[in-house]
């Protein structure tokens, strides 16, 4: 039986690596130290596998846009724009057996999850893995991964309640996996931002702090009451909080320890930890 040993959430803003010097050194240092903290927690916990929950950016989920997708492949190398991102091109081992189990379980439970054997994982999956699990010298991600992708950008998007339900179902599925396995889950993205939109650069700190206060207090109900329209009103990228909500579901709504919140790099960035 697999066991859930850790939940993490972190921003995946590409500017943090691609245009690092856009923010003053103190802010940069603060951003990096938050990732370092999460990396430390992960290394202490020693998971056997990380389930990542990230969204696509109208790149891979483009011609066909599924709401949720699980990658059932054996390996991945990327991201494609690693040079622009200024991170290594990483090799990722995918825990295919767990991915297949998770997919089948979710479909059996009535979640209409898409799948793919030819993944494209962009900065949303790869930047946080770079900071939290990257072996930069060898160009490998240190843990096997099960990549889950969501649709956070193209309407209609799944409700936050649906995302939370998916997380609950993922937890059940993972705990019924027949092998011994220590599983960590990682949500990436958010909070408010409007990349390429009319308010690109604007951060809605009030919204972000409200969302983080729901997380910190375990107020699932208030968070799930946020409609897609309300969230999109704060920016075209803000619905990436969907990924956080999915992982919150995996953690069964436990309050999160919010590590930090830093507006900058055109986005409200946050980091959080759930201990099981």
């Amino acid at each position, binding site marked *: 039986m697999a066991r859930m040993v850790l939940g993490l959430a972190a921003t995946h803003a590409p500017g943090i690596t691609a245009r690092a010097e856009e923010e003053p050194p103190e802010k940069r240092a603060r951003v990096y130290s938050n990732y370092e903290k999460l990396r430390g927690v992960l290394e202490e916990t020693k998971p056997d596998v990380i389930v990542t929950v990230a969204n696509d950016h*109208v790149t891979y989920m483009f011609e066909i846009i599924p709401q949720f997708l699980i990658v059932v492949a054996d390996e991945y190398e990327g991201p494609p724009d690693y040079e622009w991102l200024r991170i290594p091109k990483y090799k990722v081992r995918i825990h295919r057996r767990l991915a297949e189990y998770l997919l089948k379980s979710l479909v059996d439970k009535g979640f209409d999850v898409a799948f793919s054997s030819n993944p494209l994982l962009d900065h949303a999956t790869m930047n946080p893995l770079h900071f939290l699990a990257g072996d930069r010298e060898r160009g490998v991600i240190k843990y096997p991964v099960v990549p889950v992708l969501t649709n956070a950008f193209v309407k209609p998007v799944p409700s936050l309640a649906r995302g939370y339900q998916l997380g609950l179902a993922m937890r059940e599925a993972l705990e019924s996996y027949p092998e011994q396995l220590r599983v960590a889950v990682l949500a990436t993205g958010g909070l408010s931002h409007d990349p390429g939109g009319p308010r*690109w650069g604007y951060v809605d700190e009030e919204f972000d702090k409200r969302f983080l206060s729901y997380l910190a207090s375990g107020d699932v109900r208030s968070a799930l009451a946020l409609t897609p329209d309300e969230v999109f009103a704060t920016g*075209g990228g803000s619905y990436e909080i969907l990924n956080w909500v999915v992982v919150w579901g995996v953690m069964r709504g436990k309050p999160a320890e919010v590590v930090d919140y830093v507006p900058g790099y055109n986005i409200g960035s946050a980091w959080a930890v759930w201990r099981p």
Partner: protein
Amino acid sequence: METVSRNEIFKIERLLRDFHLRPEIRERFKKEPDAVMAEYGIDKRFWPLLKEGRLYTLYKMGVHQLLLYHLAHVLGIKRDEYVKRINDPSF
């Protein structure tokens, strides 16, 4: 503004997506935009919008904001100019 067919928008979006994934398309577009747009089956009436970076019009037509961002990258439009254009009906 006229309603544009989703099929037409898709052709534009495919080009913008490929700007991101296929550097060779990006480079060719800089040199011979008309030829590239023709290859992607984009209707001629949209060519000036792309070449001139008419972000407001493209956005209102329904081109996704994340893909417009790739167009701006190719045209060398930085954030402040981008935000100006996407909010300005004369674009």
